[in-house]
């Protein structure tokens, strides 16, 4: 019962930047995932808030190493969709398979599955009472049970990756928005996730700070990370995404390579949305 454009169902991996369809992290702690299993698979996903049906049957598969940007008008259900992927939002019906494991199954260890899924929020959500170091270490220590030295070494590694090594002893309130968001990305990376979810990671930032966060996201994409990115940044989607998904009214209306969806949209609603975005 999807509105999906069949023509673009299969993602393409022949972009001119080095996206490898398999992960090549040097730090994978999990049992290896069977080859050919999608990183994320949503099957007939619906979500209602009371009488309001926000997701009306979403089918979507994201392959390991793939970068998928989700675009669409405000209120179309993008955030809700993303939050269903790690069950911050409880789906009303349908399945969410993470590396083949159904996380809507009550017998699944949800907390363990969430360590494989990094999430970055619009409002950063750094832990205000903890230093940057402790923000990066706390879940490593408490959830992954890493030892202090291992956790701190990892914290330094991921902080270097987002270019903020010198801020390790700062508190979040003393960082700029862009720096806070980069720390938030590092906090997610410190868990060695297999995939990352971004919900409008740059929407709360002053325009001059957007670039630094997008640069980090882009280098992450180039390193082969599986990413599902809800964004209003069309340039980012065009340059970095393997696939763009356009949502409206709780459905996936159209999806495919960025050049196709953004450059030559087939659906009237996509065309209208892109026209409005470009006028801004």
């Amino acid at each position: 019962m999807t509105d999906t454009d069949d023509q673009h169902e299969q993602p393409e991996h022949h972009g001119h930047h080095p996206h490898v369809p398999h992960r090549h992290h040097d730090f994978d702690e999990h049992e290896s995932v069977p080859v050919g299993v999608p990183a994320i698979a949503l099957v007939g996903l619906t979500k209602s808030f009371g009488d309001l049906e926000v997701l009306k049957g979403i089918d979507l598969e994201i392959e390991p190493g793939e970068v998928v940007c989700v675009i669409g008008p405000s209120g179309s259900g993008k955030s809700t969709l993303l939050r269903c992927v790690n069950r911050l939002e409880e789906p009303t019906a349908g399945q969410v398979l993470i590396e083949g494991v159904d996380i809507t199954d009550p017998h699944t260890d949800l907390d363990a599955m969430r360590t494989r899924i990094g999430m970055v929020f619009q409002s950063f959500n750094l832990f205000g009472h903890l230093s940057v170091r402790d923000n990066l270490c706390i879940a490593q220590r408490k959830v992954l049970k890493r030892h202090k030295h291992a956790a701190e070494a990892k914290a330094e590694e991921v902080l270097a990756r987002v270019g903020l090594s010198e801020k390790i002893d700062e508190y979040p309130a003393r960082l700029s928005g862009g720096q806070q968001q980069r720390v938030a990305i590092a906090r997610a990376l410190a868990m060695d996730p297999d995939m990352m979810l971004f919900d409008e990671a740059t929407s709360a930032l002053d325009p001059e700070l957007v670039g630094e966060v997008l640069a980090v996201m882009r280098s992450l994409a180039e390193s082969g990370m599986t990413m599902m990115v809800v964004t209003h940044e069309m340039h980012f989607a065009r340059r970095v995404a393997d696939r763009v998904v356009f949502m409206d009214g709780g459905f996936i209306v159209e999806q495919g390579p960025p050049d196709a969806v953004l450059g030559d949209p087939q659906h009237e609603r996509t065309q209208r949305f892109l026209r409005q975005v470009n006028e801004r």
Partner: protein
Amino acid sequence: MGWTDPVRPHGGGRLSVRTTTRETMHRRTKAKAWRYGIYAVTIAVILVIVLKADWGKLQEAFFDPQIFADQFPKIITQAARNTLIFTFFGFSGGLALGLLLALMRLSSIKPYRWAASTYIEIFRGLPALITIILIGFVLPIALGVRLPGTYTAGSTALAMVTGAYLAETIRAGIEAVPRGQMEAARSLGMGYGQSMKTIIIPQAFRIILPALTNELVILLKDTSLLFVLGTTGATIELTKFARDSVGDTFNGTPLVAAALVYLAITLPLTRAAAYLERRGRKSR
């Protein structure tokens, strides 16, 4: 009707601008006259007291140096010490109970919420004295239940009352922590309890620190209610100590001494609470 009212001068109907102004002025002058009248009366009363009072007699009754000196060291080593011990146990117990009740009120399990609300409503609605009498008197007499330990009955009663008040304070603190904090913690794989303990509650306590300090001051003063338990010797606290001493000496000086000891403890605390509140407002 409703929305036209505010533009009309108070009950003045259709008045010209001039009359309105004159009426306002009239009202202001009247208010001024009242204020000066009150000042004058106050000053007159103070003057009469200062001139007519028998200062020698007052000093004798409330500031007798010998009696004042006699209060020491027991007023500190025994009375103030016991007051602080009751405060410490009452507050620690109240914090633990309050935290438990707050978490129950925020629980998704209905009977927990219901039980916590009932407890909070009852013990906030009752005078603290009733709870103290219940634990210290009624339980031993009516049921033969006597809590072991010197300080236990008094501390328990105070903790039960304080817990009910702190529960609401702590709940408000937890609710004041942005929702995104819990979501971020959960998205990192931390469980609900772990997220509460390491992320939410520490931040909640920062927010409510001024309120907690005020609760501490209130509790410290409420320890004086324990006199109904007939505290003597080992458990006598400041107020009972002063009252006994007044009875022995037929003089008000012990009360003044006790009051000064109370203030020496509470004033720094209330100043600290005010400071924390100001700092909290600035950092947000």
